[in-house]
């Protein structure tokens, strides 16, 4: 049965290959193959506007009321945080950190507070902190409610998962205009975007946590006569508490990662605003100083909430918790009284941020100047050797303009023979042979010119093989929407940026992950770098990348890779380290050397973790598309900005949905059922 299935799959793919080959050969004769006919395109964005704008207007009174409701506690919280003198705040944080995560972390928390004050970003940081703090309770509660509903009514789980996927992958930039229409200008609109993005991790963890409550616990509860409600609150919930707290941790991080989006709307002098205006004037120093504040905030919140989930194993308990709470309260009251008595006392020294930022900027420019010979050669090599050929293909690259020679018929022959030969060598593994042939075809035409029907056929076939009809329907809807709305070219651009970025990330990140798993010292060095790459606002990477590689796709690629390389590093290391000791010992005793051990034992066993890592890499890469558009790409992300600049909610909706569907389809294809 298995082999017949595989055979029929191979046969289908071979058929698809022949169809694609025919389409490639016919493309010069039939223009509708090369580009989707303009006459068939539909004004989908305008239609979306027709439907959506009345909806938004109807929601407006409700949204505005809601927003002004949020504004009041937000102002209070912000004013209070700014009112408490910073040494008191830092001391409180120190005590909490000590209790939750131990002395090392407490010192770290103290040092970061001093850093924030020294560079002069204390007020901005407290404003950001206020937004994050206030967006957490609704995100956690709604996420929990959604997750509990999904658990209670299993039929809801399918649609719920789809909704959560959309919430996480639909770029916030794409619904900024609707948010502004409904909720009005101000931090409330940004906060709502942040809540939307932060709900899914909580909901997912709630579902997992409730599902994995041991049957024994449930049976015991049922036998002691618990009603379904009691069963939920007294048996399931306590048993799932750990997983729920993991959800709280991830929701906190997600909410923090939206700081920049909140700032784009404005209305609040927060730290994200500082990063944005530094990006606008291309000042690396300032954006880095502000970015590090966000990293510090992220690490602090991460460690504290993670300690909640793990029961603070490293915490130092100086006092019983109740006494500690009393001490915290007293310190806070004293601080407030002190500030009331001396209203002018904010204890903030003049920041030294400016001089440091200037020095950093000058150093970056010195580096750009000094390294120019290397980077201009690298830039040319990569652009002419990799990026351009991938886009326009072997056939067009072999021209005097690009590679310095004209394409001769014998070159095509050699190319075909090389590809066919590779496929023949792989004949024992038909799937690989087919992959080589497809790759050869794509490299010949280039991704931008690869006939669109082929992309559709490949996507449909892949969807059918991996997941069946449900995914086929999604692929069909997505490709139709993209083709009909005339966004095929931006879509292909996004597709290939993502594909190249993910390949680079998986290879390089994977190798770093292996090194980190094999060597503790490497692991210790890599971990803080990964943390920083993941939490530093991506905008900070853009400036040096632009100066070294200039406006264009390659810079976008660098920015995407820097962000999306973290998951493969993390998951490969995690997977390899998770291989049970007795299995590796058995292999060593059978005489496996280190390389064999890695290749034949550890990597196969770490497979599921690695696949999850690749999946996350794709999600990260796609989520960077919109930000990468700031360095001048022509992808879907750029469409999102154009929609924003024209206040066109419909265009934003269509391009945002295209990005979200691309992410969801990629995820489903990889996550084999």
């Amino acid at each position, binding site marked *: 049965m298995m082999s017949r299935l595989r055979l029929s799959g191979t046969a289908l793919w071979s058929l698809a290959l022949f169809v694609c080959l025919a389409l490639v050969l016919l493309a010069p004769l039939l223009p509708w193959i090369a580009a989707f006919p303009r006459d068939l395109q539909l004004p989908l964005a305008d239609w979306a506007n027709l439907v959506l704008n009345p909806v938004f207007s109807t929601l407006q009174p409700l949204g505005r009321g809601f927003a002004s409701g949020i504004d009041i506690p937000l102002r209070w919280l912000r004013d209070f945080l700014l009112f408490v003198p910073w040494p008191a705040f830092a001391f409180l944080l120190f005590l909490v950190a000590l209790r939750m995560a131990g002395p090392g972390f407490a010192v770290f928390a103290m040092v970061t507070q001093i850093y924030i004050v020294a560079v002069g970003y204390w007020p901005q940081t407290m404003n950001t902190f206020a937004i994050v703090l206030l967006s957490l309770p609704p995100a956690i509660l709604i996420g929990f409610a959604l997750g509990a509903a999904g658990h209670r009514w299993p039929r809801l789980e399918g649609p719920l998962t789809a909704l959560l996927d959309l919430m996480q992958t639909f770029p916030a930039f794409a619904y900024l205009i609707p948010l502004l229409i409904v909720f009005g200008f101000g931090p409330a609109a940004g906060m709502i975007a942040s809540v939307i993005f932060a709900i899914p991790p909580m909901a997912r963890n709630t579902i997992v946590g409730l599902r994995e409550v041991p049957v024994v616990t449930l049976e015991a509860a049922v036998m002691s006569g618990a009603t379904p409600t009691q069963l939920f609150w007294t048996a399931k919930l306590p048993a799932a508490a750990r997983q729920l707290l993991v959800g709280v941790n991830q929701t906190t991080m997600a909410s923090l990662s939206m700081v920049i989006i909140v700032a784009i709307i*404005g209305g609040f002098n927060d730290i994200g605003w500082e990063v944005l205006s530094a990006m606008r*004037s291309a000042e690396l120093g300032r954006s880095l100083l502000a970015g590090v504040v966000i990293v510090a905030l992220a690490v602090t919140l991460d460690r504290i909430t993670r300690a909640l989930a793990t029961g603070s194993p490293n915490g130092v308990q100086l006092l019983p918790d109740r006494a500690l709470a009393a001490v915290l309260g007293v310190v806070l009251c004293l601080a407030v009284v002190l500030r009331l008595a001396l209203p002018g006392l904010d204890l903030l020294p003049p920041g030294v941020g400016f001089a440091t930022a200037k020095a950093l900027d000058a150093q970056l420019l010195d580096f750009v100047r000094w390294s120019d010979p290397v980077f201009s050669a690298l830039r040319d090599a990569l652009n002419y050797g990799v990026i351009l050929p991938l886009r326009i293909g072997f056939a067009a690259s072999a021209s005097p303009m690009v590679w310095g020679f004209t394409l001769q018929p014998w070159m095509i022959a050699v190319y075909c023979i090389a590809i066919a030969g590779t496929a023949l060598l792989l004949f024992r593994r038909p799937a690989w042979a087919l992959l080589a042939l497809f790759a050869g075809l794509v490299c010949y035409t280039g991704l931008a010119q690869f006939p669109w029907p082929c992309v559709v056929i490949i996507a449909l076939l892949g969807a059918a093989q991996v997941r069946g009809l449900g995914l086929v329907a999604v692929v069909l809807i997505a490709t139709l929407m993209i083709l009909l709305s005339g966004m095929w070219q931006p879509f292909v651009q996004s597709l290939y940026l993502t594909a190249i970025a993910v390949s680079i990330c998986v290879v390089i990140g994977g190798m770093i992950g292996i090194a980190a798993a094999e060597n503790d010292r490497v692991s210790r060095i890599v971990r803080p770098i990964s943390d920083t790459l993941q939490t530093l606002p991506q905008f900070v990477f*853009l400036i040096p990348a*632009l100066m070294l590689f*200039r406006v264009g796709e390659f810079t976008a690629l660098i920015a995407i890779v820097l962000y999306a390389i973290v998951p493969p590093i993390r998951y490969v290391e995690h997977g390899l380290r998770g291989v049970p000791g007795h299995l590796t010992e058995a292999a060593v005793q059978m005489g496996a050397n280190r390389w064999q051990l890695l290749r034949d034992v550890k990597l196969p066993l770490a497979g599921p973790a690695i696949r999850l890592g690749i999946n996350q890499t794709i999600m990260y890469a796609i989520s960077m598309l919109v930000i990468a558009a700031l360095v001048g790409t022509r992808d879907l992300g750029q469409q999102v900005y154009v929609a924003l600049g*024209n206040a*066109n909610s419909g265009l934003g909706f269509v391009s945002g949905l295209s990005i979200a569907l691309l992410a969801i389809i990629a995820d489903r294809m990889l996550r084999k059922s």
Partner: protein
Amino acid sequence: MRKISKPRAATSAIALAAMLAAGGASAAELGDVDTPIKLAVLEWTGAQLSTQLAGMVLTKAGYSVEYVPAGSFPQYSGLSDGTLSATIEIWSNNVGDIYPRALEAGDIENIGSLGLETREGWAYPKFMEQICPGLPDWTALQDPACVTALTTTDTLPNGRLLDYPADWGSRSGEIIADNALPLTAIPAGSEGAMLAELRAAEATQSPLLLMFWAPHHVLSEIKVGWVDMPPCTSDDPDDCIQPPEVEKVVWSGFKDKWPAGYEILKQFQVMSPDQERMMAAVLEKGDSLEDVAAGWIAENQDVWQPWLDAALD
């Protein structure tokens, strides 16, 4: 967009008629001095300075002013419902369609030019004159050697013109086509990208031609030359290079709520040399925005006092 209800429209019409009868910019009521006037603070230093100056002048008149950071696209949402009261420095070159649309909807009001002397056009770092000897004349850009120097993989075989970001809207593509220039306009993606390119080009002496505008703070750091643009052949002025308008915009209810403030803002002007000097103080010396603006206010009472007098007396 929500229509603003205007309970005081009738009275304000009478007031307006009375004012017109009295002739010119005559005395106006202060209006609601207890509610702060909320000025939008945009991302760039020039606008931040202009806003600070406007705010300080309004404070001198007796208003309380709140400075609210606002994104340059989202601000229109705030201006059209009064969440923001005014924005002082709107550049017509970087606003896309969102600004004309908001004006059309009638919820915001353009109260005239800020008075900055602006320019726009294709600029290049000074050393480009060695690479393309005919510069600043535009015909130098037809020279094959010059074009080759500007070529990148994105634009083969043409030279590259680094254009405004796609969401700003730009005219360079039409100008290139109208004059059959061997150039291709590549959108930069963001202002930050344009500045990073300009700084890197200056540092490494590598060729660059870009659409740019003045006054801009980077121009005190890098000397650029401006191409003498080809004569505009298009009938549509929007297809030609023209100095961008820099305008002051208020919420449609501003005039009724703060009549004198409205008159003051209408007269409020910032001169380019002043702004350039203040930008340099903020960006190069690290002086605080407030101090620099307060310095200007202290030294230029003869400039701003007449605005107050005209509005209040």
